[in-house]
């Protein structure tokens, strides 16, 4: 009933060329006088029902819809490479980490288990192929504490320093561009190369011991926590440029009016920094903190570049205590030295790292929706 009534109305209102639908009850519709609005609504609905043209001249939608296969062709290389080198590894690593007695040669194990995680976390001892019991201590004893120390020392320190430098850089007039370039230099270096320079600087006969009149072993045969000092200094030095770049671009976007208002209120510089600059930069700082944490969890490159091996004793072979392992370095170390026997522990370590990073990334995307605008 309703359908016909609408048709009828349109015919009256717009005198269009719509075919008159003959049907029962057509003449039974009472003439209604509901006013102009009612009629217009009906017309709009009808226009909406007009069949869309298959091919339009403008817009990109139509070109695409007839070229479906072409799009997939364009995407094919990426999809193939991504599935082979990103998605498959993800699944495979998780698979290896939960496989019992994974064999590196044929890629299968004897069943599923969570023991690998327990062994890596030091909760369980393992039995190797020779039937000997052993404990996998490197992860808990070295990898986790080292990673945590690196993370919680370098990230806040480098953000703090970068903030001060960025504010100072923003406030000066002469040589601003030049100094900005200087502070960016550590970024455009070969990490390995410059780490070795730090090894020379912190050498036993090096300039640091010389300046402070001490003879501490910072690198070779150093105590584990002493070795952390040059390591953290290097990481901070290396990570500051990126942070300055982000903070400086944030600062340049800040409205000058806030500072003028502060000047009228004769606020001190420290107060301006604490009450205006830092709050306004909070999106950038948050972003840097989260990317910084993720980056620090993955730290291993700086250890290679300064120490050359995951140990302050140098690469003395299997017997040396690997007291400078980090989580990622633990995985690499297994790949390099024990890929045939311990690969499932490496996989378990990698999965644990992935879980932590995933948590941080999700946290970031959640928070950034609310606060970060970049």
């Amino acid at each position, binding site marked *: 009933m309703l359908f016909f009534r609408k048709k009828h109305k349109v015919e009256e209102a717009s005198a269009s060329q719509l075919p008159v639908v003959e049907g029962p009850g057509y003449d039974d519709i009472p003439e209604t006088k509901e006013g102009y609005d009612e009629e217009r609504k009906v017309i709009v609905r009808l226009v909406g029902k007009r069949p869309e043209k298959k091919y339009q001249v403008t817009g990109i939608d139509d070109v695409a819809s007839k070229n479906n296969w072409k799009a997939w062709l364009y995407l094919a*290389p990426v999809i193939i490479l991504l599935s082979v080198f990103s998605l498959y*590894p993800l699944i495979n690593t998780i698979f290896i980490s939960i496989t019992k007695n994974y064999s590196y040669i044929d890629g299968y194990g004897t069943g599923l288990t969570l023991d690998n995680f327990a062994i890596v976390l030091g909760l369980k001892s393992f039995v190797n192929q020779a039937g000997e019991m052993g404990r996998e201590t490197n992860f808990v004893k070295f990898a986790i504490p080292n990673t945590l120390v690196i993370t919680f020392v370098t990230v806040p320190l480098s953000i703090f320093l970068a903030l001060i430098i960025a504010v100072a850089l923003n406030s000066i007039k002469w040589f601003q561009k030049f100094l900005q370039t*200087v502070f960016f230099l550590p970024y455009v270096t070969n990490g390995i190369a410059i780490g070795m320079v730090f090894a020379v600087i912190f*050498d036993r006969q090096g300039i640091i011991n010389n300046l402070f009149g001490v003879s501490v072993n910072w690198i070779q045969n150093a105590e584990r926590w002493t070795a952390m000092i040059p390591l953290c200094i290097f990481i901070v030095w290396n990570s500051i440029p990126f942070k300055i770049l982000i903070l400086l671009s944030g600062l340049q976007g800040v409205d000058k009016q806030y500072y003028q208002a502060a000047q009228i209120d004769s606020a001190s510089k420290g107060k301006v920094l604490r009450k205006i600059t830092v709050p306004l930069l909070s999106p950038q700082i948050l972003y840097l903190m989260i990317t910084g944490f993720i980056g620090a969890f*993955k730290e291993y490159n700086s250890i*290679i570049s300064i120490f050359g091996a995951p140990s302050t004793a140098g690469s003395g072979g299997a017997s040396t205590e690997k007291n400078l392992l980090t989580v990622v370095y633990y995985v690499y170390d297994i790949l390099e030295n024990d890929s045939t026997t311990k690969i499932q522990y490496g996989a378990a370590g990698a999965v644990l790292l992935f879980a932590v990073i995933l948590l941080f990334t999700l946290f970031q995307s959640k928070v950034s929706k609310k606060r970060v605008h970049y």
Partner: protein
Amino acid sequence: MAKEYINFSSEKMGPQITLSIKESGRTVEMIKRGEKIAKIISTTFTYIFILALALLVIFPFYWMIITSLKSLDEITGMSTGGYQTYFPQIVMWSNYVYVFQKFDFTTYMSNTIVVAIFSTLGTLLTTVFAAFAFARLNFKGRETVFMVFLMTMMIPGEMMVLSNYITVASFGWIDSENQTLIQAYACMIVPFWVSVFYIYLLRQNFKQIPNELYLAAKVDGKSDWHYLWKVMVPLCSPTLISITILKFMGTWNSYMWPQLVCKNEAYQLISNGLRGSSFTNADTGITEYGYRMAATVLVTVPLFLLFVFFRKYIMKGVGRAGIKG
């Protein structure tokens, strides 16, 4: 005492009126001058502070260069009474000669350049194609595929290394005894042909190109393929340059993966060569720091040159990407 805010310093009214606030006993002029002095002092302090930090930042580079020109005796303090010198007593250019003669600098360098060129070219191609598909073509499941792509960005590269090692080994590219140079190159190039982040970056850039250009190209009877290479790619060349440079830098810096997959030292990249054992004196076991630093300088200088010439692109790319390579 009555507070006197306006001090008529002269009997004649007019321009001689000076405003003074008696409580602090200073005239406006004095306050202005004081502020000026304070500003000069604070600017000076800012400069001192920032220059000191800049020196700290540059110091490793300086130390790298002077150490590369020192003899081993001077580096260890043997010839200087245990003290470090801030300038080499005898400038040892021979350190550099050694690097070219004994250390296989050219081999490592050519490996690095070949790997960098081919992985960059591959990345550029896949990135352009994928970004084009996402930005200009409309197909079923586009948004879903794009979301999946973005999600792979969350997987840390370090996690994939373990499985990728097994994968390239199953391709037969890792053969401990007789791995060929081509296989080693394939290991170092092929897995790095895709970067989702660059696809994302370029897609955003492609989307900014107005539709009218596309329609104009269509009117001229050009195909999508033509449009992509003659219009879109040239328009987005700054982004592509950024991608190229960052990718090059990534190869320049990569260490762990070449170390794992190259079974022959002669196939490895420059970072591996630097860290390797070429600089350890076989007889005494002492590292020849002078030689090593000379090689370090030679590796660092090209990057610096790149930075000097492409500063804008690098800083822009880094600002958006925040990653190397």
